[in-house]
């Protein structure tokens, strides 16, 4: 094995500069001297870019190390040795790993040194920022053995050859999600599965190992899901182009009645904004399924519910892949950096890069001072919507922010920051302005709602001016320095609504909350009331029904039944909710339900029959055939693809004795039990010791 490793190292050393170049280019893209200033040098962009380069090189290296072995000559030379096939392949992986780690280490070390040298004075960077990239690079190496498997595996059709690579590449796309959820038990569970999967990828290098089949099944499932999603989205976009999309949602009218209604979005006369045109709907009453086709009252003007944002649900805070969020104050950009700081850039500044400094909870810091109390999450991720109500009234969009520990007011231009409130926050929203009063802030903290009024430093609320009704342009007014004045505290809705997403305050001071899966709502008569009155309802299908529902009933079992149902049920259980809430919400109305069930069952049976036929065609045993047919009920269309990928195609030939087709790779004919008659003699076979005729006297002629 050592000899193989050394040979592979020497042979493929020439690809090392190419690898360094590829990964180096991807790293260079994220330095501020690269292409953009705006997204550059954040840990996320480095990680993303590096892993793209590393993934590319891993596949390239794997292919270059093995593709030449497809030639019979080279294969004969390399594999005919006193070394087992597996040793050759694992030797390739070890050599590949060494080269790959060098190719990753050189640019990343350079980047770390560059960061250390530039320091936080020039750019808000630290050498430690490359560590997440190192981890993702390690994970990306799994593409290398997957490529070796792809090339080593005999497959007639190119598509099925690629299945292991598809499986591994998809697992890499899932990696950020898994790492982000790693504080929950579900996260640890999925991380364990992911690591087991990586081990399986390495095991699958052995040709006869069962993990190779597993890899093919996963690859088939992923490929089928991708295809179905692609087809469905194509269908959807064609459909949308033909008819304007009709949405459905819950809205509130002036009297405080909840409605389920359908609407269409239309561009207004200016072409800048869209406005909502309600089409039809019905009030939400107790235990009903509202009829979306019902006629709306003539004077129905909906006002939307505010969405409560629950930062607590997104723990841990953007450990690996957060989204950079930026605002603009004229030319100044503020980024959230996932180290808990905001970074301030000025695009008009003469200096390059235009880095001005860091904003932490305690205020603005000049470049070089990278310390200070950190935000627990990006305050704008939710603050953005927090200030949305202010923004609709013409105030600056990013003037208010919230994280899990408080509410902050940002002063544009200077980058200064004021902490308005310090308390643990589970969820927050801004209730829209009513009657030209300033919007009010509603916080959920420790099971209680807290209602705040925004007042100026004098404690007055008259600072607020609604936006002019006939505004022709978007204005960005600056907020005056504000304070928060608590108006009321009252209990949060009961547990079944605790994951609530939407809340509204009616003009008469009534509160209405709707849970995020749209199955129940609760009302509170006023802030002094202590009991919420909970009402359950069945949310109607929001999409146009009919042929769509039938099509989706057919597509779901074919493509995504397993992935969709099982993953959603598992996710619900892990989150401590009843397992079927998500599903219930997406079911169609009762009359179409039967059609859908019938179509789904027919599609599943057809698929099982198709799998059974395919297994028979591939000559599998009874047990295996039944197993695959049952599996097709769960795995959908992936099953026939997996069968095609795993088992070689059989060729049939007419049986010379009974004239029925028979497999060429079996000695006995299943019909007549005849063996293959060895080829009919031509009469000129000369085999040792088997004279065709006695040679007596040849001198006759």
């Amino acid at each position: 094995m050592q000899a193989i490793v050394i040979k592979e190292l020497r042979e493929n050393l020439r690809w090392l500069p190419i690898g360094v170049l590829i990964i180096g280019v991807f790293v260079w893209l994220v330095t501020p001297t690269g292409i953009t200033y705006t997204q550059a040098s954040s840990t996320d962009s480095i990680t993303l870019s590096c892993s793209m380069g590393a993934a590319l090189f891993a596949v390239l290296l794997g292919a270059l190390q093995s593709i030449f072995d497809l030639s019979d000559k080279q294969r004969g030379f390399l594999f005919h040795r006193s070394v087992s096939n597996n040793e050759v392949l694992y030797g390739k992986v070890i050599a590949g790993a060494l080269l790959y780690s060098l190719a990753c280490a050189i640019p990343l070390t350079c980047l770390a040194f560059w960061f250390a040298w530039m320091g936080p004075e020039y750019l808000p960077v630290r050498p430690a920022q490359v560590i997440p990239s190192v981890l993702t690079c390690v994970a990306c190496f799994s593409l290398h053995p997957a490529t070796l498997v792809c090339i080593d595996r005999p497959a007639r059709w190119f598509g099925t050859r690629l299945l292991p690579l598809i499986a591994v590449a998809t697992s890499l796309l899932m990696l950020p999600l898994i790492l982000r959820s790693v504080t929950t038990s579900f996260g640890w569970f999925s991380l364990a599965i992911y690591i087991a999967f990586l081990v399986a990828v390495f095991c699958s290098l052995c040709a006869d190992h069962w993990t190779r089949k597993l890899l093919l099944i996963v690859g088939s499932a992923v490929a089928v899901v991708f295809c179905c999603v692609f087809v469905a989205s194509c269908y959807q976009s064609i459909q949308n182009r033909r008819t304007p999309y009709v949405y459905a949602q819950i809205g509130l009218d002036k009297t405080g009645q909840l409605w389920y209604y359908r609407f269409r979005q239309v561009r207004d006369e200016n072409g800048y904004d869209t406005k909502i045109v309600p089409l039809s709907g019905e009030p939400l009453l107790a235990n009903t399924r509202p009829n979306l086709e019902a006629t709306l009252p003539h004077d129905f003007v909906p006002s939307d519910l505010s969405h409560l944002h629950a930062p607590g649900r997104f723990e841990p805070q953007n450990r690996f892949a957060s989204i950079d969020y930026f605002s603009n104050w004229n030319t100044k950009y503020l980024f959230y950096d996932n180290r808990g700081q905001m970074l301030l850039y000025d695009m008009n500044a003469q200096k390059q890069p235009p880095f001005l400094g860091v904003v932490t909870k305690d205020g603005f810091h000049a470049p070089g001072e990278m310390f200070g109390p950190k935000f627990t999450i990006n305050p704008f991720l939710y603050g953005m919507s927090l200030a949305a109500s202010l923004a609709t009234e013409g105030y600056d969009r990013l003037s208010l922010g919230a994280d899990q520990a408080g509410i902050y007011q940002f002063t544009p231009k200077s980058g200064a920051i004021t902490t308005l409130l310090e308390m643990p926050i589970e969820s927050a929203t801004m209730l829209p302005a009513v009657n030209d009063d300033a919007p009010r802030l509603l916080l959920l903290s420790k099971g209680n709602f807290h209602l705040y009024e925004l007042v100026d430093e004098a404690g007055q609320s008259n600072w607020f001016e609604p936006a002019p009704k006939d505004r022709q342009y978007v204005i960005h007014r600056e907020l005056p320095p504000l304070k928060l004045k608590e108006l009321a505290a009252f209990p949060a809705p009961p547990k079944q609504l605790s994951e609530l997403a939407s809340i509204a305050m009616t003009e008469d001071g009534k509160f209405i909350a709707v849970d995020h899966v749209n199955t129940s709502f609760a009302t509170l008569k006023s802030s002094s009331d202590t009991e919420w009155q909970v009402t359950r309802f069945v949310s109607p299908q929001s999409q146009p029904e009919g042929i769509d529902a039938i099509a989706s009933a057919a597509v779901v079992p074919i493509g995504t039944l397993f992935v969709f149902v099982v993953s959603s049920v598992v996710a619900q259980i892990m989150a401590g909710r009843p397992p079927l809430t998500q599903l219930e919400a997406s079911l169609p109305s009762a009359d179409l339900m039967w059609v859908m069930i019938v179509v789904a069952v027919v599609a599943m049976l057809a698929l099982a029959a198709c799998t059974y036929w395919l297994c028979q065609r591939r000559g599998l045993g009874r047990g295996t055939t039944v197993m695959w047919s049952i599996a097709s009920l769960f795995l959908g269309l992936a099953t026939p693809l997996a069968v095609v990928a795993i088992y070689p195609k059989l060729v049939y030939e007419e049986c010379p004795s009974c004239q029925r087709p028979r497999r060429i790779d079996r000695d006995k004919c299943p019909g007549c039990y005849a063996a293959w008659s060895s080829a009919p003699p031509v009469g000129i076979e000369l085999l040792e010791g088997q004279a065709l005729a006695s040679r007596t006297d040849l001198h006759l002629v």
Partner: protein
Amino acid sequence: MLGELVITAQGLTRYFGRKAVVHDMELRIPRGSVTGLLGLNGAGKTTTLRMLLGFLEPTRGECQIFGRNSQSLTREDRARIGYTAEGHFLYGWMTVRQSQEFQRSTFPNFNNGLFTDTVRRFGIDPGQRNRTLSRGQRAGVSLALTLATEPELLILDDPALGLDPVSRRALNETLLDFCDGGQRTILLSSHLLDDVERVADRVAVMVHGRLLVNTTVDDFRERVAAWSLDLPPASRACESIPGLIQARALGGRTVVTVADPDQETAAAIARLSTSEPERLSVTFEDAVIAYLSRSRDSQSFLAHTGA
């Protein structure tokens, strides 16, 4: 009668798609023999050799080397087999010495002295890079690498392809040196009939994926005979001759080559010819070519050449 068998195959068949490339092959190769595997390009020689070495799975039937199924050859078995694929593949970036080192570290019984001797016979400088070697030199290095592992069985796929006369001579000498003790076995495919006649003591001929001949060279020669008949060249009447291998036109007469002629054959020939048929001497080449020409025109037994 054949002594200990090194290679055996029973009903060995391989399809590529719907086409049978090797068809129901029964093969027995005794220890100590040098077998020349002959056949046109595409007759299934390389496929057979790759199946024997376990690089290709047979569609049905099986083959064994040293009594072990080719599909499950262990590293110890492989150490006893020397194999050179068609075209004398070597890693171009290695020097001859590095190739030697690589081979030495992956075979237990590598004989450095034997390697040096063989390489010298082909006139090669061990410091040279493989990619700068001529075809003959490459063949030499390739052969030296294989022989130096001291295998008991040598399987060579067209080792003489593209070699100059001097290299061919060196190749033949090397092969004969190798099987000197009478315990080592060689199976080689080739297109050079003269060399096979010299070096091999057994001959196997494949036509259309079928093994039609597998016997000693002398037995093969003795059992193939040819007559010149007074028969119009285009006549299909020859097809009735039992054991007819090939009939071809030669100067207005027809030459028929037959396998294992007996009295019946002789009678059939005498019946066809208007004058007395003339017995021709058959060289090894004639006999092999008679077999190989069949595959060119397998529909008709008559190969219309010359005339």
